[in-house]
């Protein structure tokens, strides 16, 4: 049977694996805190009967009616059943970002490989010159890239960094 992982890059597989486990953990956290809330195992800040009467109000009126916090104020009420659910929600909203941070070094590593490939087209290098129309175009692009980099890399810290990465 065809394994879909065969056609995926390592970055995509790592991202998907982290996303999968992250969402599972977030889902478990959310479900556990939700049951603790609705079964009243943990006392809520806003009782359920009062909630049904106030949730049709505009946000600022609702907040005033139930003394609900804004900003990071929910952390002060983290021991309450309803605000306990915020941890699951917040965790799930962070998962995508965490996954991106995880694959970021891999993306940088791939950029380095691209930089090395571009380096082989550098007319100043001792690599064989690429042949054909596409090869000449690559060579022209590489020449422009390196000419531009030579003039600007002294001022641009990012180019200095990428230049160090691309150094053979």
């Amino acid at each position, binding site marked *: 049977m065809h394994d879909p992982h065969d056609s995926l890059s390592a970055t995509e597989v790592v991202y998907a694996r982290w996303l999968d486990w992250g969402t599972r953990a977030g889902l478990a956290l959310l479900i556990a*805190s*939700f049951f603790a809330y609705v079964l009243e195992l943990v006392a809520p800040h806003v009782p359920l009967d009062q*909630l049904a009467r106030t949730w049709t109000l505009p*946000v600022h009126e609702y907040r005033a009616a139930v003394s609900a916090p804004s900003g990071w104020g929910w952390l002060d009420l983290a021991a309450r059943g309803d605000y306990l*659910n*915020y941890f699951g929600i917040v965790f*799930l909203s962070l*998962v995508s970002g965490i996954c991106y941070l995880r694959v970021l070094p891999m993306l940088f590593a791939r950029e380095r490989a691209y930089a090395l490939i571009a380096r082989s087209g550098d007319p100043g290098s001792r690599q064989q010159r690429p042949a054909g129309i596409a090869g000449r175009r690559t060579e022209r692009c590489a020449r422009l890239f390196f000419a531009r980099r030579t003039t600007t890399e002294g001022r641009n810290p990012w180019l200095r960094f990428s230049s160090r990465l691309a150094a053979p």
Partner: protein
Amino acid sequence: MFGLGAGWANVPALNLLMGVPLKLAVGTSGLVLSVVDSSAAWVYINQGAVLPILVAPAVVGVMLGAKIGARLLRVVRSATVRKVVIVLLLAAGLRALLKGLGIWS
């Protein structure tokens, strides 16, 4: 299976206007919306406008639906997905029209 949330609008735009293959359009829409909606969640959390009694079951339902949809997408033919998307679009458009005319309250 249809690209999450606003996927019913994203998927036809990617597929019909930009020529992206249908299953790729669904996957792309799902990825984009998951990132965008994660960012948007912080705005509502900051406003104190999140009701866990409604949000938690909705999030669980959407995530389970997304997982089931992603698995189904591998075995369902593109033509079938296209037909379902068209039916959903027609239903959503008809509902919006009826609500606009005051027939659907």
